[in-house]
């Protein structure tokens, strides 16, 4: 309940409630504003409607089991959450990820970042009346998600980036799809620049609206494009390069005013840089190992393995693609207790079955040494960090997510104070609040 605002409100002012289910509230969040005419005197936010006990649940799950829960944090760019979590566990266990998997991770990160920014700006543009921009951006996002679906098998809940590497190698045909997605996204960005950059309606709603100073942005713990829109140069990819980012050529766009328009523009420029990164990664990525298109049927292999060990390649079902032992060196770090053992060995050999059980049995599998770790990546909204405390068992003793939009949303009360009611919508839209990450 917004108690503070009710207690502080003046007698002649009006209290207006926005949300929790309001189309412009992106999910569920409640904004209570105190109005004098159209002017906002005071504001109070109420969050927690999407709280599902992420951190508590993770304490009860094994390190391998809890990965799918990280998909559901920032559900527009789940791969970035997967990556942050996987990197935190890898840091604890001292695992080095193979080069090819690192390149694939960068590719997936940047595709997610572009789709995250497209979603944020598309929604923001729609709420300021630019419905065409929304449709164009969703169209571009579909091309990007097509690549993600082609690689991971899912559009949103991917669970693709695993501890030690990635789940599966790139499919044949990825290169063409990436090229198409990059081309289409470039075209959409060009169109959107043309539609919005000099658009009077859009400028009136965004220019010098929702301004935050550099000092306040830092004091609120802002990171990501929103912080950079105020002119502060901080990008985790540059500040502490992870994966292969130190070898890639890209720039970090900065804004100067810290208003809604700068937040829009920084995201637009960042997408162009992400597309550059995607092209560089694809150009440098060597072709993967040839696919075993032919192979004996699993049933035949299982039947045969009862008499003697099956040495011929086994064809796996599409849901197990990437689990073939032949691909492991390229995409998964070596070591018995890091990744799920290859599936065809599990089904056809006794040793494979034993190693499968040893990975999944209680108290086995991933168990980092006792200690604590904080690892972060540059997510769509800013620094996504995992703080994990291990007591040496197979479950985290404590897992805490540093959610970037928690810090962003905390500043909204201050940003809308003194503004007009209509300013809440583009200001809130430009922060890109994601409920799954905010409320955990």
């Amino acid at each position, binding site marked *: *309940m917004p*108690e*503070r605002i009710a207690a502080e409100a003046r007698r002649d002012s009006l209290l207006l409630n926005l949300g929790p289910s309001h189309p412009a509230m992106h999910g569920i969040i409640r904004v209570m504003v105190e109005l004098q005419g159209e002017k906002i005197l005071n504001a109070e936010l109420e*969050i*927690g409607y999407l*709280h599902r*006990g992420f*951190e*508590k*649940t993770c304490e*009860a799950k094994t390190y391998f089991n809890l990965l799918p829960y990280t998909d559901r944090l920032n559900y527009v760019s789940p791969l970035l959450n997967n990556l942050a979590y996987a990197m935190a566990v890898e840091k604890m266990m001292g695992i080095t990820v193979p080069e090819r998997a690192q390149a694939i991770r960068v590719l997936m990160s940047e595709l997610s970042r572009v789709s995250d920014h497209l979603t944020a700006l598309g929604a923001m543009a729609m709420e300021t009346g630019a419905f065409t921009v929304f449709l164009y951006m969703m169209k571009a996002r579909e091309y990007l998600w097509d690549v993600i679906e082609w690689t991971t098998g899912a559009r949103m809940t991917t669970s693709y980036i695993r501890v030690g590497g990635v789940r599966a190698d790139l499919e044949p045909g990825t290169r063409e799809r990436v090229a198409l997605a990059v081309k289409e996204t470039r075209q959409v960005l060009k169109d959107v620049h043309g539609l919005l950059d000099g658009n009077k309606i859009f400028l009136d709603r965004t220019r010098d609206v929702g301004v935050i100073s550099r000092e*306040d942005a*830092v*004091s*609120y*713990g802002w990171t990501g494009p929103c912080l950079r829109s105020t002119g*502060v*140069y*901080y990008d985790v990819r540059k*500040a*502490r390069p992870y994966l292969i980012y130190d070898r890639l050529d890209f720039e970090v766009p900065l804004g100067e005013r810290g208003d809604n328009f700068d937040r829009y523009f920084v995201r637009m420029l960042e997408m162009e840089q992400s597309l550059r990164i995607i092209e560089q990664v694809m150009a440098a990525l060597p072709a993967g190992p040839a696919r075993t298109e032919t192979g004996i049927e699993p049933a035949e292999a299982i039947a045969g393995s009862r008499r003697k060990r099956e040495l011929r390649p086994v064809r796996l079902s599409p849901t197990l693609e990437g689990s073939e032992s032949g691909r492991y060196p390229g995409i998964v770090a070596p070591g018995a207790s890091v990744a799920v053992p290859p599936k065809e060995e599990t089904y056809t050999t006794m040793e494979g079955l034993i190693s499968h059980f040893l990975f999944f049995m209680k108290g086995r599998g991933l168990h980092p040494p006792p200690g*604590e*770790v*904080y690892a972060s990546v540059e997510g769509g909204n800013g*620094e996504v*960090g995992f*703080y994990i*405390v291990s*007591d040496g068992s197979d479950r985290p*003793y*404590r897992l*805490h997510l*540093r959610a970037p939009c*928690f*810090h962003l949303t*905390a*500043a909204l009360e*201050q940003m809308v104070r003194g503004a007009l009611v209509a300013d809440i919508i583009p200001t809130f839209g430009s922060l890109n609040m994601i409920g799954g990450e905010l*409320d*955990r």
Partner: protein
Amino acid sequence: MAENLSRVLTERFPSGLEVLSDAPGDETVAVGEAVLLDAMTWLKGRPLDYAMLLDLTCLDERPLGRGFTMVYHLLSLSRNHRLRVKVALAADAPAVGSLTGLWKNADWLEREVYDMFGVQFTGHPDLRRILMYEGFEGHPLRKDYPLRKRQPRLKERTPDA
């Protein structure tokens, strides 16, 4: 850098501060609860310039024979450096000074820790639940809170109440 940092810190705070780890990237110091505000104010200012409170959370270490531990992550943008500060709190009725005067995001972060762990922040202007609702019983991230605990039903509220 790491040696330098621990030397600077121990010189400035001869008592009440202990360097737990100076592994690059994971520098950790433990601060006594009494000197927390002094230490944080000093860390935020020059020369160390930890301008950003990156994160703030809590650990319930009572099953390990300790009390609660507050964990702060600070970030210096100018020096590109991260520091972890830990403060040990009592096992019963944990309380610590609020950092709302230093960083603005401490407001919500401390409310979350209060909500989840029941840590009292002295000097916080508006300490109440943030993710859970009014009428929620207990603090869910405490280790003695069962994973599947049921909550009592809330009374129906009338619009006027």
